[in-house]
């Protein structure tokens, strides 16, 4: 069932199920964030966290909440949303769930670029990640191009380039001193350890800046799910549209990688999970954003809960994403798409 919204400047139609599922997911985000705030080596009671947030409590309690947990949680949510959006955009554009930036090497490119930037300049992570992702995308697409972009070619070549870039990252690690290398190795798995308000600002201002473009591009993206011939005959201009989508997707992936590291499988799993919850053949960008945020929040909170050892959050997203990938591969095989 569809609902209609009609204002003088805006008219939309959306499915009732999407609204219901979306509300539940947002509620989950809220509950999950509060839990993540309260849980940890210094737990807060059901009521105390709120009074500390509002200014009560001791200095140390305020520091734990305001300087450590809150920025970490907000970064996790923002980075997860970026991963989810980027993945769902590429998957819808390529009409193939395997074509997500973490599978086809874009995230590996972003993290490799970030590493090079750190080693060369000691900073500029965002710029490095962006350039790395962009160059990787150009390389993968130009190698996979054969009168269009056949999904199998894109996935296989992307996988290969991703492995090569991962090897390059390892090589870079072996060339730096042991301390930096240890930090970077953790970052390469994906971690939200010691995120501060600067990370929050980067990722969320990125999301807010890109939001209008995302709203605008959602309209043609939803039509791109039909074949090229059909979307073209409906009046879409495919080449500029694909270029815009790829640019936006890379920006989002780079934004996520530079604040949370190349967390594996989040971009890949968020879209298919969102589409399984609302199976109506639409890109489910918002759903993928919220699922991505939830996945990263859950992984990061889990990584904080394991006592004595600090496992990076990437270990947990891989634990969630691996089975999703196996499930999708099996579905794809059954449909004869691989």
């Amino acid at each position: 069932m569809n609902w209609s919204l009609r204002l003088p400047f805006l008219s939309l139609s959306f499915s009732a199920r999407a609204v219901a599922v979306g509300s539940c997911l947002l509620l989950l985000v809220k509950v999950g964030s509060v839990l993540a705030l309260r849980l940890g080596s210094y737990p807060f009671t059901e009521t105390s966290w709120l009074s500390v947030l509002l200014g009560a409590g001791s200095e140390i309690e305020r520091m734990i909440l305001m300087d450590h947990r809150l920025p970490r949680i907000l970064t996790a949510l923002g980075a997860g949303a970026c991963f989810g959006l980027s993945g769902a955009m590429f998957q819808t554009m390529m009409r193939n769930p395997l074509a997500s930036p973490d599978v086809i090497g874009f995230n590996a490119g972003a993290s490799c670029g970030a590493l090079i930037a750190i080693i060369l300049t000691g900073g500029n992570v965002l710029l490095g990640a962006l350039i790395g992702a962009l160059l990787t995308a150009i390389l993968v697409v130009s190698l996979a191009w054969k009168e269009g972009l056949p999904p199998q070619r894109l996935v296989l070549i992307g996988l290969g380039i991703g492995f090569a870039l991962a090897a390059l990252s390892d090589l870079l690690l072996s060339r730096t001193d042991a301390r930096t290398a240890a930090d970077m190795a953790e970052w390469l798995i994906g971690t939200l350890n010691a995120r501060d308000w600067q990370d929050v600002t980067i990722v969320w201002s990125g999301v807010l800046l890109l939001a209008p473009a995302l709203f605008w591009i959602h309209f043609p993206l939803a039509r791109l799910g039909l074949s090229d011939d059909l979307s073209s005959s409906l009046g879409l201009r495919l080449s500029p549209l694909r270029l815009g989508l790829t640019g936006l997707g890379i920006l989002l992936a780079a934004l996520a990688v530079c604040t949370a590291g190349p967390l594996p499988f989040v971009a890949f799993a968020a879209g298919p999970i969102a589409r399984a919850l609302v199976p109506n053949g639409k890109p489910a960008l918002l759903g993928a954003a919220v699922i991505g945020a939830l996945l990263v929040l859950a992984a990061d909170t889990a990584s904080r809960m394991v006592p004595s050892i600090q496992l990076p959050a990437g270990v947990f997203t891989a634990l969630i994403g691996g089975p999703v990938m196996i499930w999708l591969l099996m579905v794809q095989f059954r449909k004869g798409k691989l």
Partner: protein
Amino acid sequence: MNAPARLHAKALSVAFAKTPILKDLTADIPDGKITVIVGPNACGKSTLLRSLARLQKPDSGEVLLDGKSIHKQANRSVAQRLAILPQSPSAPEGLTVQDLVTRGRTPHQSALRQWSHQDAEAVGRALELTGMAPYANRPLEALSGGQRQRAWIAMALAQDTEILLLDEPTTYLDLPHQIELLSLIQSFNQQSNQTVAMVLHDINLAARFADHIIALRAGAIFTKGSPAEVVTRNNMEQVFDLRCQIISDPVHGTPHVIPE
């Protein structure tokens, strides 16, 4: 000669990997009529239709829509006047009939205006005309072949264009469903004067439903005209290499091919 038709192919040549498919082909798609393009396999029928719909760029020559080259007009503006349903189209899994038909409104919509009253009206009308209203909330893959094809036609109708191109709309349908679908297309053409051009394999169905037939052979027009002019013993032998008798269809009076 009458005023030029709104859709006109002028000296079209198309080649794939240096193999010529269409050779210097000039054709009018008469306004308000049903035109059927026929010819043997690999004669360039689909390529001609796709060129007319600007999905195939010609190597030389041009397609004129309302007097201007179709490739030089804004894609969206073309889409408001001309709809094409390609051969065996595909949709993302889970898409409902209602959402599919709404996709047809794309050239009249924008990101801010995704579901206007006109959209709702056009979608409702297309669903009614094709008899798909009862299935509006079903996902496409839950429908039978005939219903699915009607849903696609409904999408093309919702686009609300004066010209409708269809590439083998009856593929994979059994005979009753082929007749049902073509009768449906004929009724839109008669009610709203919509110009229809389609590729059909079955020469007898073409003879029955067409006002105008274009017969292609090896990338060029062999002959064109009314069914009675085109569907003759001599033409069938030349176009299809088919020896046959032509009788008058006892129900509709149109020519009917009986292969020998």
